[in-house]
């Protein structure tokens, strides 16, 4: 019975295992904070690329689209080099802390949020442009209006970003170090338990992770459906 992954997952949850609890909380904290920061930067960035014409705009769009597929280990390596003792930001002493993991995930999530929000905002702008110009709105004034009116589409974009952050293992492993009690998150714990051969525990953790991601997506879906029904 103890070898059954579902049993392990259930008992992990039911017993409210303290170290599991810590891992789950840290995973959520890191990923949610990363998505929050990436959204604060990425949504205005996406909207700005949609709104303004400038030389090299095509290049920016291609770069953002390409970076959506940035391999996490490459992002991890970049952040590792930046934050390592000898690196330019080594002074901050962030390497192997949750802060470093947040930075790495922001780098992974930002292109997704910027590229997809650019597309959504551009679609909406096509519909609104004449009315906006008629109202005498500047581009800077159009930005908040467009972001707010694209809110339902942007929520889906946000979930895509969160999916990338919460599922990611390579970058957080490299810059976090999977230190027990400090930087161990669900994905790195799964890797560790698998390599130790504790497959039921690894699978159990996997089930817990999947359940959490499902719960967050379901909540977001229900909220947006409710809002959509209200707003038409």
């Amino acid at each position, binding site marked *: 019975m103890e070898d059954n992954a579902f049993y392990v997952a259930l008992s992990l949850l039911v017993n409210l295992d303290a170290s599991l609890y810590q891992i789950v909380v840290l995973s959520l904290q890191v990923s949610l904070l990363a998505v929050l920061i990436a959204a604060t930067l990425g949504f205005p960035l996406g909207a700005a690329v949609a709104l303004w014409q400038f030389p090299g705009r095509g290049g920016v769009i291609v770069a953002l689209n390409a970076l959506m597929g940035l391999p996490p280990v490459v992002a991890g390596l970049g952040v590792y080099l930046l934050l390592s003792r000898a690196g330019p930001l080594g002074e901050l002493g962030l390497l192997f802390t949750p802060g470093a993991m947040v930075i790495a995930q922001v780098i992974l999530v930002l292109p997704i949020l910027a590229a997809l929000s650019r597309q959504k905002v551009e679609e909406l702008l096509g*519909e*609104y442009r*004449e*009315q906006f*110009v*008629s*109202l*005498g*709105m500047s581009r800077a*004034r159009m930005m908040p*209006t467009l972001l*707010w*009116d694209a*809110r339902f589409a942007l929520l889906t974009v946000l979930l895509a970003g969160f999916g990338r952050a919460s599922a990611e293992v390579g970058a957080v492993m490299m810059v976090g170090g999977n230190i027990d009690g400090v930087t161990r998150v669900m994905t790195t714990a799964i890797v560790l338990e698998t390599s130790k051969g504790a497959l039921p525990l690894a699978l159990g953790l996997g089930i817990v992770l999947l359940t959490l991601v499902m719960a967050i997506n379901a909540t977001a879906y229900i909220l947006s459906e409710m809002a959509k029904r*209200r*707003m*038409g």
Partner: protein
Amino acid sequence: MTSLNVPLNNSIELSAPPSLRFENVEFNPFGHRLFGPCSFTLDGPGPTLVMGPNGAGKSLMLRLAHGLLTPTEGAVTWSGTSAPRQAMVFQTPVLLRRSALANLRHALAVNNVPRRLRTELALEALARFGLSSCADTPARVLSGGEKQRLALARAWSLSPAVLFLDEPTSALDPAAIKAVEAAVQEFHKQGTRVVMTTHDLHQARRLAGDVLFLSEGKVQEHTSADIFFRAPVSRHAQAYLNGELVA
């Protein structure tokens, strides 16, 4: 449907509406001439109805006049030192994904109306166009007629000196058309210069002070409604009024 013939008690001054002048205006993006060259002045009392077959350049003319498009050649000028406050109502009303009230508040906000006045002015405009009961309804679930009235209410709340309407009633039922026409006349009575395109001859007869007839991207005739409907001068207008196909 609420009557729109309510007595007026607002503060818009009844002065002569600003006049609009097209001077050798031409619009030819990518070398394709779509409009002009043409010159005319809209300085009569109006309302000015812009008529002509499909593809004649009616919508282009409105967009050039309103500044949504910049003429490739020539100039669009207004009487007075600067361009007057303008609004435009489109064939398909463009409404934000928020409540009717929030749509008006947004328009007032971008026109720098102080925050404390916005709700009051917005509610006033909604009431004038019989939309009080829809204030909290999402704008995009309103009926076609209500949407167009909301677009008119938005224009109204900005007290424009010039109002452009691009076939505002082409997708509406008779009751909704009547409401829009009443609103257009209200604007006109307030001293707003009304410039509107339509395909509906009856509507043009009901509303027009003067008619600007376009065909093939050029102004073929600009006469008072009286003359236009009784004895049009241009061959194109004669053919159009007779229901013949005009290029």
